[in-house]
């Protein structure tokens, strides 16, 4: 394949696909490492991933990636086939993860338009040593020989890649394995197979087939049941061989795979000889391998199908789409509720209009959901960070993930991944103590870091909690003084304020700079990233017990379930999660204290009343509490009764930020944002927490 074929879409696809596969593989490795053994599913999966990456990177001429992927594939091939005992799985994971990192780095280079120039030979060598080690244990061949032969075979393979890459056509020896299934009941399978062989004779240099003896009537039933397997050595390309093979009469199913490993050819050559000798014991082994190939073929076709299902779309286009749909909803309302139609009996029109309304609302729902991505992917990535840190620092930490299904706007996910990693690193590095220290303190040997996400009244909260040593208040204070960040004395400043000093630029209390943290750049980068999406970050800590860092991600484009209410001519939306109940108040339940504060007695408890029309100065006719409705909302154990004119209804709303111009002018108390209602009018979203202050 010449380089002119490598055009942008293909490169994009390669990057997209490989990144996904690598991430998937990383997860597999991490989850299996925990159970300190690899189950056969995982081994198969990793083998398959490496195989795919090897193929695609060789196609894209990234020989370093394909070479490394090949070594790893070999490794897992041994694991899969020979099932060796006593494998050092932790060493294996290290090696594989290192490989993953290498490929990630190369892909990042490619994405940035740089040359993928990493040199994996050192890693390759270590993989090979490991490879021979596990292989050696299994079959007790002298290690020296094994290494040599292994290296030779890889060497052959590497050369082979180069030739394949340059021109597929002139590669002198392509080896293919073809499995042919004929239509059932077509009869004379052995003769049909013979004609296939005959057709190919001119194209191939060497061939072997199973069953070997095609003159024998018995082989017809074997072909019928197991298919006809051909192993070919040919100077022709895959496509050409394929073209010949598909012309076979009564062909039901054809599987043609290119076999990279020339050893296999020799193997099968030998084995097929055994077959000839009617050795029934050997048959299962061969069939086993055949099955695996079949499986692999199927999986690959499945994967190919899956790739077509997912496409990546630019977020800007989705924004446009969403605006357009919003506009269409308004247009729909304008048509169906057109004043010109008033008083007319239009049965058919009404029917059609109902249908239109149904479709538009469905369309709106779908467009809204498209942008939302669950946090699971981002959270899962943290497993890797924890693992690496623990290995390096000899600490033992368990990562607990909660609320992974929480959905966040795609844009936001991109912004919080790095900060999360920083925070987790910090927790492990500064927070969690060494295992021995923990035991001395009477804590569990294994530290726990909890990463939790939840929707809180429309915000998304991401909480990173560790059970480490907590912040050192005195040290933070001393440092802050030294840097001139605070002037107050100790009594004037609250603990929580002290802890939040760590987010100021250039603040790091850790004396020793480690590989992971302590340069004092981490935290303010975190803050910048979070603020970039309009979020906020707070820290709290209990000395000796642990630290909690809370990221509050704003609602921009988060979809919330909201209850729409009306006050005068204005609409407001209250996040449904905050609502406890709503009811029409009875005058007997109302209490007014001497300061004219209104309160409401509900089931023996007293709650303050907040009149929306009063705090927002909205003109409304409904000022008697008994004429309107009370919505009881709750936040952080505090309860408030909001008084409004009436409830409009519940709906999912896309939260939009208020225009910058408004936000810059003044932060309006209790307003979190705004949203568009179905008819195009704007509703203001209430920030319950803000209203309670």
């Amino acid at each position: 394949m010449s380089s002119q074929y490598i055009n942008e879409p293909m490169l994009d696809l390669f990057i997209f696909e490989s990144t996904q596969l690598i991430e998937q593989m990383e997860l597999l490795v991490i989850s299996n490492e925990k159970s300190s053994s690899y189950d056969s599913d995982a081994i198969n999966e990793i083998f398959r991933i490496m195989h795919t990456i090897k193929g695609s990177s060789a196609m894209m001429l990234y020989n370093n990636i394909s070479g490394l992927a090949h070594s790893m594939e070999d490794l897992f091939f041994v694991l899969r086939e020979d099932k060796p005992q006593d494998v050092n799985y932790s060493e294996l994971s290290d090696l594989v993860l290192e490989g993953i990192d290498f490929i990630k780095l190369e892909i990042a280079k490619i994405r940035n338009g740089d040359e993928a120039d990493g040199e994996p030979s050192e890693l390759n060598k270590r993989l090979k040593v490991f490879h021979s080690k596990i292989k050696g244990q299994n079959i007790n061949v002298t290690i020296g020989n094994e290494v040599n032969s292994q290296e030779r075979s890889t060497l052959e393979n590497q050369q082979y890649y180069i030739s394949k890459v340059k021109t597929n056509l002139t590669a002198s020896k392509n080896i293919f394995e073809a499995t042919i299934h004929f239509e059932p009941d077509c009869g004379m399978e052995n003769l049909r197979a013979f004609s296939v062989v005959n057709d190919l004779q001119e194209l191939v240099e060497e061939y072997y087939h199973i069953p070997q003896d095609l003159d024998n009537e018995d082989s017809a039933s074997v072909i019928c049941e197991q298919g006809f397997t051909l192993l070919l050595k040919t100077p022709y390309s895959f496509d050409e061989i394929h073209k010949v093979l598909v012309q076979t009469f009564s062909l039901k199913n054809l599987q043609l795979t290119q076999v990279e490993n020339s050893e296999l050819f020799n193997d099968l050559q030998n084995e097929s000889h055994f077959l000839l000798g009617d050795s029934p014991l050997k048959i299962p082994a061969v069939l086993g391998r055949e099955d695996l190939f079949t499986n692999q073929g199927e999986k690959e076709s499945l994967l190919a199908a899956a790739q077509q299902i997912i496409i990546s779309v630019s977020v800007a286009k989705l924004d446009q789409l969403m605006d357009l749909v919003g506009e269409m909803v308004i247009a729909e309302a304008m048509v169906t509720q057109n004043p010109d139609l008033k008083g007319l009996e239009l049965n058919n029109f009404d029917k059609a209009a109902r249908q239109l309304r149904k479709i538009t609302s469905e369309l709106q729902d779908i467009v809204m959901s498209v942008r939302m991505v669950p946090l699971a992917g981002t959270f899962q990535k943290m497993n890797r960070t924890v693992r690496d840190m623990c290995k390096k620092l000899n600490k033992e930490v368990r990562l607990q993930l909660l609320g992974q299904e929480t959905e966040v706007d795609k844009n936001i996910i991109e912004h919080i991944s790095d900060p999360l990693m920083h925070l987790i690193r910090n927790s492990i590095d500064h927070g969690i103590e060494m295992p021995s220290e923990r035991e001395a303190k009477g804590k569990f040997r294994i530290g726990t870091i909890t990463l939790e996400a939840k929707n809180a009244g429309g915000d998304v909260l991401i909480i990173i909690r560790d059970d480490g040593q907590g912040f050192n208040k005195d040290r933070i204070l001393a440092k802050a003084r030294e840097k001139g960040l605070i002037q107050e004395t100790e009594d004037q400043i609250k603990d929580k304020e002290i802890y939040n000093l760590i987010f100021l630029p250039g603040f790091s209390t850790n004396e020793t700079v480690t590989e992971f943290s302590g340069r004092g750049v981490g935290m303010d980068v975190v803050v910048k990233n979070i603020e970039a999406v309009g979020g906020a970050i707070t820290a709290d800590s209990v000395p000796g017990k642990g630290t909690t860092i809370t990221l509050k991600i704003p609602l921009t484009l988060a979809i919330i379930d909201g209850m729409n209410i009306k006050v005068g001519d204005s609409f407001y939306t209250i996040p449904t999660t905050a609502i406890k109940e709503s009811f029409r108040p009875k005058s007997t339940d109302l209490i007014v204290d001497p300061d004219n504060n209104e309160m409401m007695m509900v089931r023996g408890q007293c709650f303050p009343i907040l009149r929306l029309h009063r705090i927002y100065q909205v003109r409304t006719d409904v000022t008697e509490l008994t004429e309107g409705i009370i919505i009881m909302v709750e936040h952080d154990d505090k309860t408030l009764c909001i008084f409004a004119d009436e409830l409009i209804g519940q709906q999912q709303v896309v939260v939009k930020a208020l225009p910058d111009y408004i936000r810059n002018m003044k932060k309006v108390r209790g307003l979190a944002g705004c949203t568009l209602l179905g008819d195009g009018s704007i509703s203001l979203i209430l920030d319950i927490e803000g209203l309670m202050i």
Partner: protein
Amino acid sequence: MADIVELEAADLTEDTQKGKFLTFCMGSEFYGIEIKYVTEIIGLQPITEIPEMPEYIKGIINLRGKIIPVMDVRLRFRKPYREYNDRTCIVVIEIREVSIGLIVDSVSEVISIPDEEIVAPPNVAKDGNKYIKGIGKVGNDVKLLLDSDKLLNETDLETINDL
């Protein structure tokens, strides 16, 4: 500083729009606004009030899914409020990616005013003409040319004074 450079760069690219002004009237005066800032002119729409805003910020409107604030230019200039009627328009302008709607009594036309016909505003009062960039002469009429940038961005000081 960088902003000014940016605005000047925009000037260069939009050569064809140079010297063209959209004029609108308020009371008896005619005002002009540089055409390059104008996105569109729309009829009056239902406006959602935002509480705790200065009087001249009437609220927000939904402009095809985009939510933009609207400002009543009359109130901005401390003129008496006038009931909106079917001549009332919202002129949507965009400066440095900030969109805002200006409520004006009515729009009239787009005219070209060459640079030499524009004179600096007289220095009357300290406060009097801070939103006027210049005065354009068209025939016997004068048009007050708005400094849209100041109109939008010099609000912070004002707001604090107002409240």
